[in-house]
């Protein structure tokens, strides 16, 4: 492992960085499900950097599934958005790193999340705003499969395709945690509305990077279902 003071750390450093954050063990399953998706997004996909957190042209990443944020904080630390020293303060009274991310306290965090079902409709608004201003930046939002139970997503899914929001990508981390399974897989809900949808192994970095790469051949927004082991 590289030293913890190195501003740019690698994938192998993420689990040690997660281990520095204690006190929220009940969300271990929710945390580790997103680890590989988050890493691939920040390492290979998104056009963002610690030095450009206020650049209007940056890509936007919204973590809608705000519970279990330890891998998110680990990736932000590995990529230099926040100091590694912050991680051990996780959940503390004075810590910027709460059990749900706060956009006003953490550099690089675009939305405060935790109340499920808001990330996707917020991302629709952000995609509209960027398009209206002539900026070509992408908006990528991470949701959980059970989070799609929230009805607010249904409103956003239908509208995003109708509005031709090709800059919008939803990555749904599917750990089969929905109490009532979506028949035919959750991607069918997007496809019937006109989205481009693929399902990949949520632990396979090459497959994730390929699926998350920008598609420019149509106006359809994109869904990537990242399938991981079921939550226990």
């Amino acid at each position, binding site marked *: 492992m590289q030293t913890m003071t190195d501003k740019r750390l690698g994938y192998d450093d993420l689990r040690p960085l997660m281990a520095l954050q204690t006190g929220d063990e009940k969300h271990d399953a929710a945390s580790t499900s997103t680890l590989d998706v988050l890493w691939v997004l920040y390492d290979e996909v998104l056009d963002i950097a610690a030095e450009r957190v206020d650049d209007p042209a940056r890509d936007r990443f919204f973590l809608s599934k705000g519970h279990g944020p330890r891998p998110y904080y680990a990736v932000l630390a590995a990529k230099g958005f926040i100091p590694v020293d912050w991680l051990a303060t996780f959940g503390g009274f004075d810590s910027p790193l709460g059990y749900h991310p706060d956009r006003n306290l953490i550099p690089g965090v675009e939305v405060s999340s935790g109340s499920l079902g808001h990330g996707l409709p*917020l991302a*629709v608004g952000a995609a509209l705003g960027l398009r*209206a201003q002539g900026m070509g930046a992408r908006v990528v939002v991470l949701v959980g499969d059970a989070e799609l139970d929230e009805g607010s997503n249904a409103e*956003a899914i239908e509208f995003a395709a109708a509005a031709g929001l090709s800059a919008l990508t939803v990555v749904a981390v599917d750990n089969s945690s929905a109490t009532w399974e979506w028949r035919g897989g959750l991607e069918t809900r997007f496809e019937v509305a006109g989205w481009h949808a693929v399902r990949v192994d949520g632990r396979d970095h090459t497959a994730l990077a390929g699926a998350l790469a920008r598609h420019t051949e149509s106006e359809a927004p994109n869904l990537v279902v990242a399938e991981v082991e079921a939550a226990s």
Partner: protein
Amino acid sequence: MRERFAATACELLDQDRSVAVVLADISASMFAEAAARHPGRVVNVGIREQLLVNVGAGLALTGMRPVVHTFAVAVE
């Protein structure tokens, strides 16, 4: 009151390129001309009040100044 609101909001759209108006079908016809003048800055999401509010918030996150409009009873 609605006529005055629509006229004022349309003036703001003409004056300030950061202003956007978000609608959920209510009053959409009153913004048809403004929508033609300012494509992308008048957004009608249909009868979707949850989306209406979140789209306004998302627009604001990109630096725009959204005006979100519907009848109060529709978002209670």
